[in-house]
């Protein structure tokens, strides 16, 4: 049985303007209803499979993002939702913004948009769950779950 049938989300706002956050919440409303795919928005990193980050990572939120990521049990997938989370967006050159989420933790799926549309986000999550299955398979083959830190660019 594939584990992709029950992805639990954790949503963290790194420094978003709340535009993308509202769209993430909109995806759980009756119109979009992500629970159709078994997706639950859990607040607990220890229960989550998919980490959704909105907003560019700044000096204050970088440590929180790292900590949340390290608390999530393997296999796990990271989605950068919105253009700010993907590469910093219009805040890219600000003195306090370190850029996209991938400057802090390895990102698997990039979902651009300002703000990200719920349809695009659901599409990204569906891609992410396929990746979850793949990571689980790799973990079984290697007999352990290891985070691939080589994907993290040098600071």
């Amino acid at each position, binding site marked *: 049985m594939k*584990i992709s049938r*029950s992805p639990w989300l954790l949503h963290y706002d790194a420094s978003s303007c709340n535009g993308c956050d509202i769209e993430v919440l909109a995806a759980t409303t009756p119109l979009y*209803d992500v*629970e*159709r795919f*078994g997706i639950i928005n859990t607040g607990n990193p220890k229960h989550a499979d998919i980490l959704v980050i909105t907003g560019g990572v700044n000096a204050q939120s970088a440590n929180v993002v790292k900590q949340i990521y390290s*608390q999530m049990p393997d296999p796990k997938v990271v989605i950068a939702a919105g253009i700010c989370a993907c590469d910093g967006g219009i805040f890219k050159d600000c003195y306090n913004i370190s850029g996209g989420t991938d400057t802090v933790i390895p990102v698997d799926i990039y979902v651009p948009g300002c703000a990200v549309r719920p349809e695009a986000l659901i599409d990204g999550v569906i891609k992410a769950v396929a990746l979850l299955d793949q990571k*689980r398979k790799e973990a079984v083959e290697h007999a352990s779950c290891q985070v691939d830190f080589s994907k993290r660019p040098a600071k």
Partner: protein
Amino acid sequence: MNEIVIMIIGIAAYLILAPVIGILVSGYDRVVTARMQGRVGPPFLQPLYDIIKLFNKEATIVNKVQTALVVAFLIFQVFTGCIFFSGSDILLVFFALTLADVLLILTACSTNSPYSSMGAQRELLSIMAYEPMTLLTAIGFYMVAHSFNVKDIICTDTPAIIKLPGIFIGYVFILVIKLRKSPFDLSTSHHAHQEMVKGLTQDISGNVLGVFELAELYASVLNMAVVGLFFITNKPISILWALIAINVVYFVILLIDNIFPRVKWDVMLWSSWIVTFTLGGANLFLLDVLKS
């Protein structure tokens, strides 16, 4: 000899069928909840997919005792159900069930997470709220059947509900607390909590959470079976009434879950105690007066 065979069949049926029924009930729960909110909702077998996923996940073990306590919680939950379905003492069932819950509280207390210990304290308050009513339920069954044994209670001529309507309503009331449904989902919830994230299960993760979910399935089947006990008599047709009653009660609990917001602990405590002592107490008092 025949009695022992029936006991073993009851235990085996519970061990095998309870997770299956639990998953179906839980799936029904989630689909009906979604429909009440105008959503399509997850697939019917979603709870099964959740448990399979959890057993495929890595667990973050925060200390040495946590896993042992969660496994002990499962064992006591299953053990309690075995006592019930083998037709033994219902008083023992309620006490063993409390012991299982205490193990869960110890699990939550053993970690350093403030959310977890907050959930543990709220769970203690929940026990305080529902425990008097469970005792009155057991006493009520004794007054009707003159025995605490489940096998004697199901052999009466008239269903227990006729003599115990107040106790029945009181038991359904505390069932909302036991199943952790809104407005009494204080310690942990299937829905996202704002103020304390996941409460009791905060630090339980991966396959250990899978064990916890499995224990919850056994618990829900046992709790609903006690509802059925109010309707079962020595006539085989009464099993049908019991199943209908269980369905109606579960639907009402889901309706309450979707209508009411979460209350504070003090509201839970006084409301459950008022229901216990007015409905439960009055029911027992009248039963005693009418008998003599």
